[in-house]
């Protein structure tokens, strides 16, 4: 039997809804995230229409059919859900959440459910049920840790993903995500942070200057170079907030000498489609592919970003040519390989603090990237420690599934979503938390602030940038460091 680990006061703060009454009245929807105004009429019918269309043109029906038959409702998923562990509220049990959608599926899309519903005159989809789904499915961080513990193999993360997809088709989707995606797919900048190309180029030039000053090495961010081995897509927020991550990546390429480039036609790896809509996901991933083909790059290289890497890795073949799709490589894989081959040398005396690695769910849950960054870190961080559990069974930072982009729910994220992670970090005693994911980094920094943790959060390449060893032949002269015209 478990009890909630957050206090009533924390709960009140976390679930506080600051929306004005007139907004709630107008939207007829009481959720903590902001939603753009949408058609409130006839929502159940439109929900079912969207559900039917999605079932017809996807592979979800097979899964829902299977899951709705085998669901045993044993509550074992509670042991792995950081939301339930923090709230103790049965409505936060992954299985309970999944049943919200499975019930609609059984009632409206299976013969038995339809007959039973008609006979009993019950089970109709109502506005109240939609309200409950709209709240519940965005309380989940879609970390998929519960999937590991379901004896029946029910993928609650998939159901959350599908429910959000259907809700988004009737207009229920966090405004922060939609606005970003609109700019990415229809705006002039073609990225989620609205960074124009001249600003990108300025940033890159500025970073190059910084690296020249700090490392006395000429390190470039090549743009629009055709026929490169790698076309690089970073989460665009890195260009605004994660300078050291980018410099670390550029430094790695400087020592390996491999040909890489950033396309100015499209350079944002972020794909919020994974969080709320497959149609969006498809369009974003096609843009990545299109840019790679424009530059005739051989591989798609994704920066430090869990969800973007997973989307590209898993869905590039789906939407961009099956077996003929461009291979997708994560920067973590690339760096690990370079380090293994001895092409990347790291000074073991630079990082002396206690370092711990946080697994981004989208890298680790399916066992894709677990050991690679650890091997690199252990190779140059003298004081490396592990959190428990870690790897495939890691605990989500609390900002997964797009939650981190919703600033209005920060109290929820740092009080409930990230509570277990905060405890885990505190227990590790780490001074540096390495999180190679833009979303995790933002969430963990807010967690450090709100939960008063005594550590700092960095990306893997931030540390690599500090410890990287350049050959003397790469060093530029004193006068070259200070005056660019000398080149």
């Amino acid at each position, binding site marked *: 039997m478990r009890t909630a680990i957050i206090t009533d006061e924390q709960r009140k703060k976390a679930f506080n809804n600051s929306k004005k009454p007139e907004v709630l009245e107008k939207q007829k929807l009481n959720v903590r995230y902001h939603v753009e105004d949408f058609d409130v009429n006839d929502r159940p019918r439109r929900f079912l229409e969207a559900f039917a269309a999605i079932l017809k043109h996807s592979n979800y029906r097979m899964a829902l059919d299977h899951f709705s038959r085998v669901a045993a*409702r044993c509550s074992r998923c509670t042991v792995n859900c950081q939301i339930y562990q923090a709230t103790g509220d049965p409505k936060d049990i992954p299985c309970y959440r999944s049943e919200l959608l499975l019930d609609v599926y059984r009632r409206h899309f299976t013969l038995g459910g339809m007959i039973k519903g008609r006979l009993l005159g019950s089970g109709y989809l109502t506005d109240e049920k939609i309200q409950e789904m709209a709240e519940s499915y965005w309380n989940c961080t879609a970390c998929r840790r519960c999937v*590991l513990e379901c004896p029946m193999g029910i993928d609650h993360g998939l159901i959350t993903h599908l429910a959000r997809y259907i809700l988004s088709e009737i207009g229920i989707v966090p405004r922060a995500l939609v606005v970003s995606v609109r700019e990415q*797919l229809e705006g002039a900048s073609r990225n989620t942070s609205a960074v124009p190309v001249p600003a990108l180029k300025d940033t890159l030039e500025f970073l190059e200057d910084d690296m020249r000053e700090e490392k006395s090495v000429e390190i470039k961010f090549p743009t629009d170079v055709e026929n490169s081995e790698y076309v690089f897509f970073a989460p665009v927020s890195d260009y605004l907030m994660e300078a050291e991550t980018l410099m670390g990546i550029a430094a790695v390429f400087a020592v390996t000498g491999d040909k890489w480039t950033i396309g100015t036609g499209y350079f944002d790896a972020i794909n919020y489609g994974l969080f709320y809509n497959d149609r969006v996901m498809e369009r974003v991933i096609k843009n990545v592919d299109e840019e790679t083909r424009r530059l005739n790059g051989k591989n798609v290289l994704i920066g430090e970003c869990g969800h973007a890497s997973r989307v590209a890795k898993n869905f590039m073949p789906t*939407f961009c040519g099956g077996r003929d799709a461009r291979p997708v490589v994560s920067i973590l894989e690339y760096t690990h390989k370079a380090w293994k081959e001895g092409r990347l040398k790291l000074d073991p005396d630079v990082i002396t603090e206690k370092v711990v690695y946080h697994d981004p769910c989208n890298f680790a849950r399916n066992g894709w990237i677990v050991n690679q960054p650890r091997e690199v870190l252990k190779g140059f961080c003298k004081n490396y420690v592990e959190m428990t559990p870690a790897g495939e069974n890691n605990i989500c930072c609390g900002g997964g599934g797009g939650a981190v982009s919703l600033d209005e729910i920060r109290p929820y994220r740092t009080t409930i979503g990230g509570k277990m992670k905060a405890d885990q970090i505190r227990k590790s005693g780490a001074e540096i938390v390495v999180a190679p994911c833009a979303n995790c980094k933002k969430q963990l920094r807010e967690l450090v602030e709100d939960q008063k943790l005594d550590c700092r959060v960095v990306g893997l390449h931030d540390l690599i940038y500090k410890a990287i060893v350049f050959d003397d032949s790469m060093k530029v002269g004193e006068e070259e460091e200070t005056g660019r015209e000398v080149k």
Partner: protein
Amino acid sequence: MGSLLEFARGPLFRFSFTVMVLGLARILFIDIWGAYKAYSKAGDKKMPWQLIRSRGFEWVFPMKRIIRNPHIYSVFSIFFHIGLIIVPIFLFAHINLWKQSVGVSWPALPYHSAMWLTVATIFFAAMMLFWRAFVKSISSLSRGQDYLWLLLLLVPFITGFVCANLSIGAGTYRFVMLVHTFSADLIFLLMPFSKIAHCVLAPLSQVVGALAWKFPPETDHDISLVLNKSRNIEVKG
């Protein structure tokens, strides 16, 4: 009562057993056919077989997972399932019935092992019921069928134990045996139409889960068309 017992053991058993076999075969076929169609439609046909295998086997032999992440109800459930599967199949009396009717037999459990396993199964089922009824995290998820199934599964175990171990009069014995046989028939009959279908479907769960993430390649085009949505980011519903 004797003829009723013969009916329950004979025609009714054959009927319910056939319904169970055909019903489970039907849903297994539906599941496999659905998976095949999903695979055919998928844009990416590369399946993570190693992951599917390892996660599937983890739940065939779940002790490691249970020890790593304890959950009391799961512990009860595992021990309950051991008895639930082994006792009816390897009980000497049951094997004997098969031998008499269709002429096939297989090794039986020693008498005392079968009895202790029966007692353990009854105990763990009772604990599961208790947990379902009184532990909030489980009771809040439970439907009627979750309780009814545990009760129904308890009946043949309790009645079987009574018949095999207690000194009861011939009339009572026949009555208890009748309940035993009818309850078993009912279980067979209902299996394909309830959550007990997991006995054949659960091994496919990992494949189904992996396949569901394999989307058809033209999702955007097809769904936009059906929902009559322009292909911009229209969220006004």
